[in-house]
């Protein structure tokens, strides 16, 4: 497969929560081949490094990709200055391993924490009513994408740390309840590392396949510079895997937390 890098037209930009922006970009050549779990590597103009952002929706027919990101620093602030009609410099799709889709799964649980929620949406699109989408946020002003999950037909469960919306507490509370109600075939998760670790442990205890999407500070995004390392076990050996190329999606059993 060849990599694609170039400038693509932004069709839509929406501010969907405090400092969180939702972009749709016209990029038919990328939309045709992008897979759930992969990411786009965006260049804020004038910055030395690109920013890896998860893909939130792939529409091959319309030739569009959608992604959602939070302004966290100067680079993402620069990206957030771009508006509909502007061009954005993307290297995409990147990510050597996206989510492994099992078409036959009868029930899956999607666990998204904060800005780790967007990559769960393509999975909700695939699994529809077979999916339970559990999302956790710090507070009500950070909540995103709940209507999108409902639209896909997923059972949608919301948690906030401060209880300002939905269940008060962490995503692990409804996760355990849903597992007890009916054991899922797969758990997919993306979010802060402590959340992923907790989800992975619950999956392990219940003997459920668990796929986690990891984040790490990144350089090239294509596996050449080796900066985005993460400790993992492969073939019984401890390795420093690279999130961009060996992931970003890992089997939770491979990850050394």
């Amino acid at each position: 497969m060849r990599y694609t890098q170039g400038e693509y037209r932004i069709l839509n930009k929406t501010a969907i929560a405090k400092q969180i922006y939702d972009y749709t970009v016209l990029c038919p050549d990328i939309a045709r081949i992008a897979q759930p779990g992969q990411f786009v590597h965006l260049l804020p103009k004038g910055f030395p490094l690109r920013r890896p952002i998860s893909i939130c929706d792939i529409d091959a027919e319309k030739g569009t990709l959608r992604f959602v990101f939070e302004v966290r620093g100067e680079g993402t602030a620069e990206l957030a200055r771009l508006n509909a009609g502007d061009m954005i410099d993307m290297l995409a799709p990147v990510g050597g391993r996206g989510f492994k889709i099992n078409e036959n799964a009868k029930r899956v649980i999607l666990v998204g924490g904060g800005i780790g929620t967007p990559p769960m949406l393509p999975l909700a699109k695939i699994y529809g009513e077979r999916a339970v989408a559990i999302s956790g946020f710090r507070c009500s002003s950070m909540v995103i994408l709940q209507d999108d999950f409902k639209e896909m037909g997923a059972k949608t469960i919301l948690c906030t740390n401060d209880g300002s919306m939905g269940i008060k507490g962490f995503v692990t509370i409804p996760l355990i309840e849903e597992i007890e109600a009916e054991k899922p075939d797969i758990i997919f998760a993306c979010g802060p590392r402590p959340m992923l670790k907790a989800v992975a442990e619950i999956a392990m205890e219940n003997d459920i396949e668990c796929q986690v999407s990891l984040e790490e500070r990144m350089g090239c995004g294509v596996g050449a510079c080796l900066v985005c390392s993460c400790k993992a076990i492969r073939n019984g050996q401890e390795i420093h895997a690279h999130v961009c190329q060996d992931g970003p999606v890992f089997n939770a059993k491979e990850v050394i937390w």
Partner: protein
Amino acid sequence: MADLSVNIAGVEFKNPVIPASGTFGYGREYGRFYPLSKLGGIATKGTTLESRLGNLAPRIAETPSGILNSVGLQNPGIDKFIRVELPNLMKQETVIIVNIAGSTVEEYIEVAKKLEETDAHMIELNISCPNVKEGGVAFGVSCDSAAGITAAVRKVTKKPLIVKLSPNVTDIAGIAKAVEAEGADAVSLINTLLGMRIDIRTGRPVLRNNVGGLSGKAVFPVAVRMVWQVANAVKIPVIGMGGVATANDAIELMMAGATAVQVGTAMFANPFAPIEIIDGINEYLDKNGISSVREIIGSVKSW
């Protein structure tokens, strides 16, 4: 179309642009953007005798106009490199420069000996990696140790030997002269400048290794200065690097005295940077009626 070819230690390069060690892996990844045969050469990831896991993450931090990295020489080891990566590289119709690193003189010798039996075109001796305590930088910071390791490797290899110099020294020209005297066929510079960033919210260094190597546009003026000083001090060719991002940067570094340039950090923002630099140098030469890129090497009219 101007003549872009240059010659370093008897090795012919079709153009003077080479992706720098540590930014280009073993070529496979960027081979998915463009044919590697377009490049003047490739400097491979630093390779050691045994495989190395490298440092813990985070290994990268952005800085004003640059980056800090602390990869720590993660590589599969020379045997696996020769078995798995080198055959693929040798098919790419470009000059293959194998960057080697080690913790001891014996390790460098062992790696160089193993390469002697291969078709690799050149060896780049990394005595300047700042990210591993025993990653060679100790050899690169004094004239005696740089000369010693050069002499030791020189004895076991007939391949053209490039010594990659550290900028974290008081007199880089002195070190260049010392390695020239011991048989280096060329020098390449600059490796990264040792730097550090701290996250003031957590009070922790941004890099898990605390310190790392600074590269990118921020270091370019330092590179120009050091290339100029070294080119004026030695007779062997100089390969310049450090923040080269555009054809103008490459031309500037060649005017300072570089016979060829390496491009690294710029590729993270623009994977096509080396290709655009090659095209840009050609355009510059054509526009200025210069028939060969060799005419600009060291052509700075110093005050």
